[in-house]
């Protein structure tokens, strides 16, 4: 079980959190005309790197804040966690 440092609450066990996918994905602006390809990239296409990955986690059984985590997908090493408006 991973140990994740919530930027608001501190270190907690993984079972308090839920995973929220790639943190680098940016939702297209509302109302903006975009191509099918751009939209598909946003909805469906994700990188699946072995190694460093920045991702979103949600502290559902805690403060209920979403935040960013830089994690190695192979070793599970967590390099850093950050609030959404902070740099990873």
């Amino acid at each position: 079980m991973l140990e994740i440092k919530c930027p608001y609450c501190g270190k907690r066990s993984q079972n308090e959190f839920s995973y929220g996918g790639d943190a680098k994905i940016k939702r297209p602006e509302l109302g903006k005309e975009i191509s099918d390809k751009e939209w598909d990239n946003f909805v469906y296409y994700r990188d699946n790197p072995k190694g460093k990955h920045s991702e979103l986690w949600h502290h559902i059984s805690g403060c209920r804040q979403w935040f960013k985590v830089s994690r190695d997908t192979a070793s599970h090493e967590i390099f850093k966690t950050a609030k959404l408006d902070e740099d990873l």
Partner: protein
Amino acid sequence: MSQTYRLNNVGYINRDKKISFKFNGKKYFGYKGDTLASALLANGVHLVGRSFKYHRPRGFVGAGVDEPNAKVQLYFKGADTEPNANATEVELVEGLIARSQNCWPSVSFDFGAINNLLNKFFPAGFYYKTFMWPKSFWYKIYEPIIRKAAGLGIAPLKPDPDKYEHKYEYCDVLVAGSGPSGLSSALAAAKNGARVILAEDKVRFGGSLLTDEVTIGNKKGKEWADEIISQLKSMPNVIVKNRSQVFGYYDHNMMVMCERTKDHIENPSEFTPRQKLWHIRAKEVIISTGSIERPLTFGNNDRPGIILASAAREYMKVYGVLVGKKPIIFTNNDSAYDTAIDFKKNGIDPIIVDTRNDSQSSVANEAKSLNISIKFFCAVVNTKGYLRLNSATIGKFNSDKSDYEKLENISCDCICVSGNWTPTVHLSSQSGNKLKFNETIDAFIPNQSKQNENTIGSAKGSFTLKESLEDGFKKGFELSNKITGKNEKSITPTSNEKNYGQHDKFWCMPLPKKKHYKRFVDFQNDVAVSDIELAVREGFKSIEHVKRYTTLGMATDQGKTSNLSGLQLVSDIEKKIIPEVGHTTFRPPYTPITIGAIVGREVGKHYRPTRKSPIHEWHEKNNAVFVDAGLWLRPRYYKKGNENLLEASTREARNVRKNVGVCDVTSLGKIDIKGADSAEFLNRVYTNAWMKLPIGKGRYGVMLREDGIVFDDGTTTRISENHFHMTTTTAQAANVLSHLEYYLQVVWPELDVNVVSATEQWAGAALAGPNSRKLLGKLFKNIDVSNEGIQFMGYKESDLFGVPARIFRISFSGELAYEINVESDYGIFMWKKIIELGKEMNIEPYGTEALSTLRIEMGHVAGSEIDGRVISSDLSLEGMLSKKKDFIGKRSLFREAFVNPNREKIVGVIPIDKKTMIPEGSHLVNDGNATLPNPKLGHVSASCWSVEYNNPFSLAILKDGKNKIGEKLYAVSPLKNKNIPVEIISSHYVDPKGERVRS
């Protein structure tokens, strides 16, 4: 005579406390402090079981977790039974009952032993080769027979009566193993201020100090260990645990440990948990798990009486038990000389058979000076004795050890073997440490740590006491210093030990010409040298493949004594060095763990929380039959007399259509939304328009996922300018909240909106039916409840006999209906008032089944239609898709498949005979009798008995449904063996214009 193999004054057992126990139906005696194994050996019993494949008689090999043979079935007081217990780990308690496994009718006469005579038919991979053809035989004939013959004990049939607990702990330094290196590191770390947990798997602390003749400081090893333990126990920053196996090293230094807390206690209280599973998050982990002796390989090396030299010594020195009185010590190294010396000191004359030319170490010279007979450059070639070893053939090697110059038979009752030591690297390997092969000791040791793992002592291949102590004190100080910043150093005591020479790399004895004795490598799974040779010959070169083909190391002992021998064999045959062959993966758990310990208290109704509405007790008193709705328990129907589900729900639904009904809707998800941008936010979340919703009005909304699929629906009411009350389905309440939080925090943080779950803050009651307005008027005397006073989708706040209440005019049933919310604590008050005042209007409570009936015949969608596969137009909700604004998921609706005019559409389905209920999940097809696969046009999502028309009615999602109204199809359910002719009609079966709700 009993306990004839017990010594008089050696060991740490309590001779004042005699204990009786039963093994295979026979009564024996042992002492407190014995294991089942030591007590049986004290009584001269070596034969404990039959091997897995050939049913060969087998005896004890080890004295601890490494034991491959002595698996027994235990029968506890009051409890059922437990299979596969290691007799070497089971502590003796009064009245213990144990039986051998894998034998029938008895361990000494076993029918399955015929397999041994037929062993030519059971080579490596025999399952794959023999039982494959004809294929149909597998399920009916081969598998049942194999299962019966290859038993690993009997699984208990009754529920486990014991309690198991989970415990979560944090520490600075966890030390696994209490040998000299573990004790010294725990002491050094604890004295330097660290929070320490010291875990020992066995009952007694001290590891090798329990048996080795050493001194530390001016004390004997065991005395020193006792003193350190009492010192550690007195320190407030230290937890000391025996009977506690650290079995897993998981991510981020999460260590899991199983503590045995009950089975050894004579009279446990009913509250004593049987085992405790500890989850320990340690800043640093010290692995001082020691090492395990490996056997030597020779002809018929598996007979009862052939035992590891270290185990023989442990039985002698810890339990005061001789494993035999005519011992042969067969070794390729010096450590077994200690066993010989201990036999000699206890008045038994051993013979040492050593594969080496000579040894000049201090321990070997001590043996020589005690006049112990030593046969150098010799080997045990073969053994005899069916149920118990009775003689051995000793061979003098020829010059290159490929054969023997001379053979002689020696009578003996035990052979104590030693093939050198294998560090217990399991936890190190689990932590991610890629092991490296050490040529000096011919075994793997840890290399580079991946986590905060620190392996010391013989677990990393340092076999001298001096190194272990130095390493322990050093690591304990270093790691604690890193954490506490303190500088209190402990002084490493001086020590005295014997010196041990280099072992012989030779471990697998050749067979004499024309002899085909079985030489076992893995005892528990009956894997012999010939099986591994065969596997390699057949092309299985990867060690992982050899393992699976031969089943080497795959039994419950996980090859603790056999894996390395298997590797060495493969490397010898392949003429590769061991590092090239590699090793198989070490996975947790290190030792078998009971399912009970893993599950802990989360059994039965504690498996997950149960959510109950504040009105629950009333439902119970009024004969409600409950149904699980997520975590909630909701009344499904209220049983009257002998009614069944259909009769009761039909009565309840009819009463709603005719008079008035009340339904507990507390479980519905409720989210409180506040902030200046709340309307804008709803406008983005829902598919329809929200900006102009007036205060005091609600609106039905549908939300999509970004991929365009319908996510959830519900009504949201504007309570004030910047305050909304959202409802969600019971099932999706938590997901909708996370969804909203995601968009507010991650995507649109600029919006001034806050959301919070209010599900449990409000109790809800839905009043539905033509009399509901009249009842509302009686409940709320201070407000105008007329059609103009509270319009359809209107909202009012009032007080219910002094209790603040919210009134929503919403309907799920299609009837004139209201939903009343009060603070949860007043839920029961509200409910009782409704029932009391509704009596004259013939009110009846209705459950979820009637609720379903009412919504289905209205064509109102719910979870069975919103199933994660449909878009708005499939549910005829396309009218709610705003053209003027963007919203979550809108862009996806322009995808090719989503604009297809022949897409699925929600429809109504009635059976032509107007009698047969259509099972939910039935497929709609053109031809009910077509051969499979019968092309599916759609599926029935929900079915009810229409109370309006008094015949069955179903909803279905049907391909090109809107053009299929009036068509005749078939609803087929192969599971229920149904094939029903049906007609497709509109999904709005009752009141299609929706006049009632507005009346």
